[in-house]
């Protein structure tokens, strides 16, 4: 069964179509990524899926429930990690979990029995009685993740779960998300970090201007959308790069320049590498292409803020 299906969703705010005929399906037990630049319609799509706002047209079925009509019942089996921290600052870690569990109609004794296990999952066992103000950003995010697990949900929505975290904290969150997936949970994730999507997502869609512009597994998208190798060439002094690009662009399938950097996307980089070895004043990095290259190719290099 699909954990979530959305068909032909449309939503307009003040004459601006934020979601413009979006369709996708999420297989149960997988991690699904919803990617797109700022303003692409990701957050609105999540709000639609949770029944927090109604679509102008289109259909959503979440965990077998029609959304938004049956959203409250659906949310009983859903966990949400929002983009911005909305933990209760007046409470300790344990109280946050207790109070949140009550919103799901759970009995206090039931919740209290779960709290040690939830705190352990979040790596916060020693912080049960700690006030929120004493927690770091990473700890708060982990507590938010634990809070989303209080009702033992089937599906967990994560809106940019690692934005603003340091690498250690990000890796810990990724590790927990992988655990959840192994436990059979469905994860629905939005992120700006392509390495995060590449690591976690089984399938993903890229949206822009409320429309789906690509869909597939990270590997599939990289294979289909882009050349397998990238050489990034940086200008060390001035003036070298333009000439180099002009003379050597036939050695790559595609070249993009952005400021002082040229990106050579190619299938066979050997000739280009040989040329680079002969040129002075250019620095380069040779790497396999990744999801970020796909994302940039699909959505462009311009800023979206």
């Amino acid at each position, binding site marked *: 069964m699909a954990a979530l299906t959305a068909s032909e969703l449309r939503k307009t*705010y003040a004459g601006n179509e934020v979601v413009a005929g979006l369709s996708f399906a999420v297989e149960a037990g997988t991690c699904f990524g919803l990617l797109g630049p700022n303003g692409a319609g990701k957050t609105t799509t999540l709000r639609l899926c*949770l029944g927090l*706002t109604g679509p102008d047209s289109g259909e959503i079925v979440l965990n077998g429930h029609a959304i938004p009509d049956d959203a409250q019942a659906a949310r009983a089996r859903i966990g949400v990690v*929002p983009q911005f921290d*909305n933990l*209760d600052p*007046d409470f300790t870690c344990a109280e946050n979990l207790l109070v949140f569990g009550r*919103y*799901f109609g759970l009995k206090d004794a039931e919740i209290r029995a779960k709290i040690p296990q939830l705190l352990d999952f979040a790596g916060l066992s020693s912080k049960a009685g700690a006030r929120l103000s004493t927690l770091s950003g990473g700890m708060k995010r982990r507590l938010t993740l634990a809070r989303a697990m209080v009702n033992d949900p089937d599906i967990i929505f994560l809106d940019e779960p690692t934005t603003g975290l340091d690498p250690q904290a990000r890796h810990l969150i990724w590790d927990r998300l992988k655990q959840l997936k192994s436990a059979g949970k469905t994860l629905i994730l939005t992120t700006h970090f392509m390495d995060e999507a590449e690591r976690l997502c089984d399938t993903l869609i890229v949206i822009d201007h409320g429309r789906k512009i690509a869909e597939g597994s990270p590997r599939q998208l990289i294979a289909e959308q882009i050349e397998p190798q990238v050489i990034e060439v940086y200008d060390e002094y001035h003036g070298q790069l333009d000439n180099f690009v002009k003379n050597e662009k036939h050695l790559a399938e595609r070249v993009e320049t952005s400021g002082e950097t040229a990106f050579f996307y190619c299938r066979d980089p050997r000739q280009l590498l040989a040329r680079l070895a002969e040129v002075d004043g250019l620095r380069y990095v040779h790497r396999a292409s990744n999801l970020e290259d796909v994302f940039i190719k699909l959505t462009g290099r311009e800023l979206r803020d």
Partner: protein
Amino acid sequence: MLPQPSLLGWLPVWQRNFLVWRKLALPSILGNLADPLIYMLGLGYGLGAMLPSIEGQPYVAFLAAGTVCASTMNAATFEALYSAFSRMHVQKTWEAILNTPLGLGDVVAGELFWAATKSLFSGAAILVVITGMGLTNGPLALWALPAIVLTGLAFAALGLIWNALAPSYDFFMYYFTLFITPMTLISGVFFPTDQLPGWLALIGGWLPLAQGVALVRPLLAGQVPADALIHIMALLATAAVAFAIALHLTRRRLLK
């Protein structure tokens, strides 16, 4: 799991606010008590010494009944404005709750009942103090407690309308200067409304604070209020209609 939506969906929201309050209960009660009591004692005995008895009772007893109602109104109003706004707009507590099976109706009802509870704490605390001072007359005064709850519900619901419209905390000042303060002066809190021009007294008599005063003052004096049912229904109707409007406006604000 609760069957959703549930008649008791507001309860966990109320419990959340109660748990926060419990951590700060003593300073909160003292703070809510001190200000109205200082006014009541200062005006009641200071001004009262110069005044003849009003409606057959000393001025301080007259003012005590008004103070119970005004404090009830203020407690409910502050909670429904500043505190609810913090939870809705600043802390995003409501947003967190809306990701659970609870709906916006549960959240706003939880806030309504919580603000009414806070107003009950406040009104009841003053009732205890003035009873200790001998300013109430007989057990009928206990019936002031449900009247306080009704007054609190009405003002909580009215405050939640303004909360739903507020862009920032500054906006609440207008509610006090345009609505709460003038109402306090024409609802018979400080002086009988027959001192007012007829048309103003008429307007004052329709306002929810006057409905509360019309119930509480006779009860504290040991009398059954005249037209009690009308006042009760007026407060209930105010609460119900204002709640419906507040919910509609909050839905437009948060779930668009």
